[in-house]
């Protein structure tokens, strides 16, 4: 399991970095899918198979497909890629990256103060469902409302 976790982690990292430095949208999307799938594997390794499923199906599947459709509709060609290269000047990203690196240091600093090991105990669908349809019912309803709103908004916005 440890092995699974670290390999998946490395894959996720590489894929993610590839996403943000890639110039081709479609390539980036594929890397993103890989990243998401590796996160799904991590979930599995952490004993959250349900979450892993959802990650694979909803994120890597549904959401990314949505992206793909849009890519196709926009039909961004070679010019966009050239533009992207032009925009990737070090002077443009060095500042934000430094700032963010600082943030990472801070967060790591906070996280490393504790030392607890994770015991991957599987949390199944049942427990989640009990919670979802128990104390969190209202949140679920709100989420559904959110999705509905997203649906309506997306429909309206994408309309001509």
């Amino acid at each position, binding site marked *: 399991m440890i092995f699974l976790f670290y390999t998946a982690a490395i894959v996720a990292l590489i894929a993610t970095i590839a996403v943000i430095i890639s110039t081709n949208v479609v390539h980036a999307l594929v890397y993103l899918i890989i990243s998401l799938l590796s996160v799904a594997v991590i979930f599995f390794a952490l004993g959250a198979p349900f979450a892993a499923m959802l990650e694979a199906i909803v994120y890597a599947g549904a959401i990314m497909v949505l992206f793909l459709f849009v890519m196709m509709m926009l039909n961004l060609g070679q010019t966009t890629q050239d533009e992207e290269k032009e925009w990737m000047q070090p002077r443009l990203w060095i500042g934000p990256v430094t700032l*963010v690196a600082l*943030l990472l240091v801070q967060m790591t600093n906070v996280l490393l103060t504790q030392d607890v090991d994770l015991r991957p105990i599987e949390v199944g669908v049942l427990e989640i469902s009990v919670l979802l349809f128990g104390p969190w019912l209202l949140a679920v309803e709100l989420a559904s409302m959110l999705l509905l709103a997203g649906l309506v908004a997306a429909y309206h916005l994408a309309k001509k």
Partner: protein
Amino acid sequence: MQNWIGLLPAFPLAGFVLLVLSRGRMSKTAASFIGAGSVGLAFVLAVLISIEFLNSGAQSFSKTLWVWMQVGELDTGFSFYLDGLTLVMILIISGVGFLIHLYSTGFMADDPDFARFFSYMNLFVASMLVLVLADNLILLYLGWEGVGLCSYLLIGFWYQNPANGYAARKAFVVTRVGDTSMAIGLFLLFSQLGSLNIQEILVLAPSQWSTGSGMAVAASALLLGGAVGKSAQLPLQTWLPDAMAGPTPISALIHAATMVTAGVYLIARTHVLFELAPSVQLLVAFVGLATLLMAGFTAMMQRDIKRILAYSTISQIGYMFLALGVGAWSAAVFHLMTHAFFKALLFLAAGTVILSLHHEHDIFKMGAMRRRLPVSFWCFIVGSAALTALPFTSGFYSKDAILLAALAHPTYGMLLWVGGVLGAFMTALYSFRLVFVVFFGSSHYAAHEAAPHDDHAAVVENTSPAMFFPLLILAGLSLFGGLISVPVDAVFAQSGVHEEAHVSQFLHTLMILIPILGVMISWLLYGSVPYEKAGAHLRQRLVQSPLGGWLNRFWFSGWGMDKLYQTLLVQAFLMLAHINRKDVIDIAFNGTAFVARFANSALVLTQTGNMRWYAISLVAGLVIVIGLGVFR
């Protein structure tokens, strides 16, 4: 009759109201009938009241018309108080006033604003009567301000000329300075004595204040401030010469006979207060002395006929102040009366000269008017003689009394007397200079300057009887007015003991001779055949010597007081006002708005509209907040 005392100011006031309501549409006959008639009625009433009052033998008489203000301890009414002093004043005001109104119907006959003129004149007479009749200081203040207003309106009567407006404003503002001092004096009196009724004050003050106490000094000094302003004494005398911008009857009525003597009246009325403050009383004497000398020297140098008379008025009121200062109350009032006669006469006569020369004021452009204007000439002679106090004229008796009283002053008697005599000498010099230059010598009047279409023969005397009758009456009074005795002894009963002074025969004779000497010197300088040759040469040399030239300019400018005030006060005020035209407070408040707007424009730079910029600032904020939390 006495019970109708309220009608005294009511007649002229009614005249004022009628004339105002007519809005200039009334015929001139009707307007002059109302204007002069109302004052005439007042005079008749004043005479009847006087007769009754004098026959009754009462000391005083008072009547409340209605309650004016009654707040707490303050209880003032529209109440009139009549005693000997008031009696003299109302007779002068309504009598001389009536004569001058009569004169004005002729003098102003060609003026389109005839009715307006008489309305202001009537308002003036009404205010002046209220001033002298008032039994409390607030009502007196009403009259006091009322006459000031009328003076303003009448000086600026020919309003289209800005110079007249300037003179009028100057008169009002300068006297207002004195008025304010007087108002503060009223506040002080009320807060200390709890009353503003004059008779009560005169009783209360000696009982509450000891002689020379600080309050008495302060109160009388403040009242003196008011008197100095109104009576054009140092240091507030600068307005009176400029006030000559008004029509000549105004100068006669307001700026010679009545209003300017209000200060004298005020001090005489409140003499008890001044007796409680000997230092202030002495100050009165020295103010009078300084003023009479200053004005005498200045009058010597003037070219404008009316300005000469104006300075002579200042000087004569200086004599009255001198008399007040040495406690010769009734002498002051006596001189007030005789001065009203001869100065009104001089002004009215000057008016006829001016009118016949088409409003020419420069005496050196006149000359040889003796044959052309005989009546004016004789009036001038009589008036100047009285002014100079030549023996047996009215001015002689009054000025004699003043100088004798001054000499009797225990400490400064000789100084005051010498000053007064020197003043008398100057008076003789300048008044006969005026007579000689205007009426003798050769004519310098160039008619084409003033009125191109008239030939030289246009210099004729206006023969309207309305103008001559007052002149004759006043000339009579100037000559024989000294025989009238003013019934004021009862008013000043408790004081004025040192009026009957014993004086050496030598000094007395000197005193009588010095004016005559002055007249003779004046003749040498200006009157001797033809003065251009001998006198002019002498004068030329005097003026050309450095000291003489400087003195000439210095005296001509009224001892530089105008210039001093102009620089020190007027310019400073104007500068201050114009610097702060925009109101610095407003700027301060707008400043907050400006700072807000500036901050806005600075902060708006952070709103680039660029999403990444917002995200970066968000992250930066996050870094800082976490940093604060973690590395605290």
